[in-house]
């Protein structure tokens, strides 16, 4: 029997038109810009120039991957411990984790300069102890820290929502069948929290790999990430829109390939894919 749906599919048509114009067409135009020069003549030069930026691509992927891994390692126990609390504390913590997301991320990132700078809070404190100063700001570590900090809520929340829906008796069943704490984690908790991990990894990796603000503020101008490269060309003016599109296009394809591979490895359905 077919489940009856209410309403008419026609009410979706304004949206379908909208998404065609503002989602699909822009991507087509981006492809068009990538494959033309500034006069509109067809060229492959933009694409073949991508090789020049392989260092930026490499660093971006490396930093984003490290940041995502650290985020996962930090967020996983947090989400798990949250599920162990009573319901009202759980809800409170959920809010506490979410609130920083409502803050402007530029300011949140910028505050780290106050903490990490050569004359910042940590170094002031260290010098009072007669130590330091440590070089904290303008290092790859600071950039990665910024990524972890800005995006960790996006990892905690999906992990938490998957874990909190998990039937507690599954963990008991695993223990009952002889699993110690580690085996319980490896054979039951980990595989069952995969959907949450996949959406968490996606939501941390994608903005990390494409960021251009964090690297400028916390990394100094030494580290050109791929986002910085795109922004740089964008600011140079219309002449450089073609190369900027080509880099964006490659970035997009690369991210899609990463996501595709990850979803395959996860081998799971779309459950838990939504943040809230």
């Amino acid at each position, binding site marked *: 029997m077919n489940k009856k749906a209410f309403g008419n599919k026609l009410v979706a048509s304004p949206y379908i038109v909208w998404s065609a114009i*503002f989602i699909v067409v822009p991507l087509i135009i981006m492809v068009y810009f990538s494959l033309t020069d500034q006069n509109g003549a067809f060229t492959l030069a933009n694409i073949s120039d991508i090789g020049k930026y392989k260092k930026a691509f490499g660093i971006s992927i490396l930093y984003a991957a490290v940041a995502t891994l650290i985020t996962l390692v930090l967020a996983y126990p947090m989400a798990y411990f949250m599920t162990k609390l009573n319901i009202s504390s759980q809800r409170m913590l959920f809010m506490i984790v979410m609130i920083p997301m409502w803050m402007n991320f530029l300011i949140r990132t910028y*505050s780290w300069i106050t903490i990490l700078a050569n004359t910042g809070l940590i170094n002031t404190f260290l010098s009072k102890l007669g130590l330091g100063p440590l070089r904290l700001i303008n290092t790859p570590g600071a950039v990665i820290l910024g990524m972890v900090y800005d995006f960790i809520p996006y990892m905690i929340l999906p992990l938490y929502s998957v874990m909190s829906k998990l039937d507690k008796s599954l963990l008991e069943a695993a223990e009952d069948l002889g699993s110690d704490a580690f085996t319980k984690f490896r054979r039951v908790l980990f595989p069952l929290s995969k959907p949450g991990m996949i959406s968490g990894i996606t939501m941390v990796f994608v903005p990390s790999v494409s960021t251009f603000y964090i690297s400028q503020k916390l990394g100094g101008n030494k580290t050109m990430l791929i986002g910085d490269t795109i922004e740089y060309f*964008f600011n140079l003016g219309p002449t450089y829109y073609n190369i900027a599109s080509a880099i964006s296009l490659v970035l997009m394809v690369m991210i899609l390939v990463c996501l595709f591979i990850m979803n395959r490895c996860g081998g799971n359905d779309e459950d838990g894919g939504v943040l809230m």
Partner: protein
Amino acid sequence: MKLLSRLYIALIILFLYAPVAVMIVFSFNSSSSVWVMGGFSTRWYEGLVKNTVMLSALEHTLIIALLSAIISTVLGTAAAVGITAIRNRIAKKAVMSVTQIPMMNADIVTGISLMLLFIFFGKLIGLDESLGFATVLIAHITFNLPYVILSVIPRLRQTDAHLSEAAMDLGCTPVKAFFKVILPSISTGIVTGFIMAFTLSLDDFVISYFTCGHYQTLPIVIYNMTKKSVTPDTYALSTLIFITVFVLLILYNILQTKSEKKRTEIRRV
């Protein structure tokens, strides 16, 4: 073990809130440095009132957030209803895949592609400066839509299909049945979608950056300021925003707990 997990949670919270605390503390700094604490002062809060650039940016941000949230909620709710009514599996899958593109894509790619679209069509109709209020609004609606749709669709799925049949059986027209029966039962999804759209729009920097032209929103102004050096008035404004959000969320939480309690009490009676 319990102690250890509490400690861990506390450390993560400390990590999450350390920069926020720094920001709040330095917004009360009497000197204009965001490095060295001079003394306590509220001069940056007083100065905010006179900072016309920042205030007009705040106004722009609120206008864009409100408008884009309203439009995307209406458009997105209609879309969700329509999409659930699509029977053809391939068509449905195609629509859903397109819907997910702005969520999956990096903001910078979405921003650049929209910018190119606006410039491309601007040239076609002979505009020199095509970026501005309209383009930011369109961009915000576009990236808000998927979040609205994806928070309404699950609610629609949970809604009993017989509800609207029952309403029509009792004399409602299909349209009336939708507004009287279906809409109330998916209202939580719509509200969630609206709140998400509003806050995403409020906070967006990257996509606005590429599509705003001279119509500067608050994140853009802040970005331009941090390019030079930040003065504590930015911190003061952010502190005000933070406290507003904090209070609203706590209130929302309290109200929700109360209504839930009421509901369980009613159930018990």
